[in-house]
Structures are given as C-alpha cells and as structure tokens.
C-alpha cells in the first residue's frame, strides 16, 4: 500500500479506473472543441452529423455503433493519473489510437510506473498507460510524464 505520493516507485500500478464514455460526454467535449458550433463561418471537419453523433454516419464509415473521438481516451488516461496523484503536474501525455472506443461500452484505464527520477526534491515519474476492454484488447496505449513537487 502506498502511504504518500513520494513513495510511488517503478513497478507500482495505477489503480484500474472504470470509464464509460457516453453520448452526453462526447457532446460536451465536442462543444468545447468547437465541433458543435454550426454558426462558425468555417465549419470544422466534424461539424454536422458524423461518426460520433449520428449512427448512419458511423455505419457508413464501417462502424457498427457510435464511436468516441480518440483523444477523449487520452483525457480519461490523464484523469486516472490525476485521481491517483492529485497534486501533480503532467507535463507530457502521448497516445496511439489502435482501435475505436465505442460509446456506452465500459472500459478500464490502467498503467504502471516505468521510471522515477528525483532532482532538487522534485520527483519525475514516467508511466505506461492503457485502456483495456472486457475482452482484454487494448484499443489505446500511451505514456505520461508526471512531476510531483516537494
């Protein structure tokens, strides 16, 4: 059991976080990105019906159901780390989107610490992060760098 953040070490695992992306979440985040604003003079490529908001559009592109924008999985990864180490600063986050995430399908987010450095009292952790489905497949994987100050 970890007593304090300063004790987090290589090999420690991020507690698995359950996450179910749904249509409302997609809509709110797309709105933040300006994708839902059809009043813009230049519409974004994702304005109007698309694979995230319209089933027929998703099916036309070969998806059985509505999918989730890939970068929202990154947001969930960041969130899982922030819940584990709340007073930290994530300076880098990268992710490869291998397979789509499906709306209303629960996944879990996990990770492991792969490196730990201490300099001037500041701890820098590197983590491998992943999203795992019920069938064990990992549609997204990435890494993060997190700094914990004294």
């Amino acid at each position: 059991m970890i007593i304090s953040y300063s004790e987090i070490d290589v090999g420690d695992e991020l507690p698995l976080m359950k996450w179910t992306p749904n249509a409302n979440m997609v809509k709110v985040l797309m709105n933040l990105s300006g994708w839902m604003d059809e009043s813009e003079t230049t519409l974004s490529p994702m304005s109007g019906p698309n694979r995230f908001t319209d089933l027929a559009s998703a099916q036309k592109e070969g998806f059985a159901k509505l999918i989730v924008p890939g970068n929202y999985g990154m947001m969930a990864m960041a969130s899982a780390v922030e819940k584990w180490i709340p007073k930290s600063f994530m300076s880098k986050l990268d992710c490869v989107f291998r397979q789509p995430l499906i709306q209303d399908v629960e996944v879990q987010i996990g990770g492991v610490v792969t490196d730990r450095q201490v300099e001037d009292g500041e701890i820098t952790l590197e983590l491998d992060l992943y999203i795992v489905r019920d069938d064990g497949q990992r549609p997204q994987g990435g890494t993060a760098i997190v700094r914990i100050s004294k």
Partner: protein
Amino acid sequence: MTEKPNITYNEQMLNVEQEAGSVVFTEEIISDYGNAIGHPQDKSGVQGKIEVPIGVLNAFFNRSVQKGANVELEGATVGLNAGRSVEMFEKIFIGDKLNRSAIFKEVYTKTGRSGTMAFEVWEILFKDSSGKLMARATDSMVYRAPGKAGG
C-alpha cells in the same frame, strides 16, 4: 513489386505556421471538461491559482485548426485520429489567454495487408502573449478505406 500509392497533398502548406485564434481558459471550460470526463476538477488551487489540466488542452488541439493540407489518398474515404503527443512546457492557469497556431509537418504512407494508409502530421502550438511556447501537440491523422481499425 509494390505499387506507389496515389496520394496528393498541398506541399506549399508544409511547415507554414497558421494562426488559429486564441483560447481563454475559463473556469466554465474546466468545469465542463471535468464533469464530462467524470472527474470534477479541484478548485482549491495553489496560492489562488488554479491549474489547467493537460486533458483540457487536448480539447483545443483538434481538426478545426488543421486547414489546407488537402491530403487525398485514392480509395481512402475515412480520416481518423491515429495518435497524439501533448507536451506542457509551463503550467497554465484559469484566466490565461493563449494564442493557438498550427503547422502541417509531413505526410507519409504505410502499406500492409489491408492496403495503403496515409498519415498526416500536424503540430499545434499554444503561446502566451510574449510568444513563449507553453504547450505543443503533435497530432497524426490516418486516411484509409472504411471498415478497418482506428479511433
């Protein structure tokens, strides 16, 4: 023998930095993000300043600022995000206003069993009013025929 993929794009746009407006990181943005992602954000802050999490930046690194590359790969009708890397060089706080720009960096192809895919790579930058680089995303889109993996 491998056939050369039939791909076109606007080479004149390569490495051109395009301004893409500014973003003010408001408390409302942070709240909307936190509530949507299922992790309401801590509003206590440090010395009265509330940090903007890296995930929020991610919402503003998006396709709407990636204009003019005009990548066309024969047979590819679907464009999906293939991957992304986000770096924050400095902490960003609620109330900060940052200028956004986008640079079309490269196009390359990969051919496998399922055919050829084209990858379009962009950098999206956030700078403060003095021009200091605060954050950068490297974003990769893949173009392919419908019905294959991607996100």
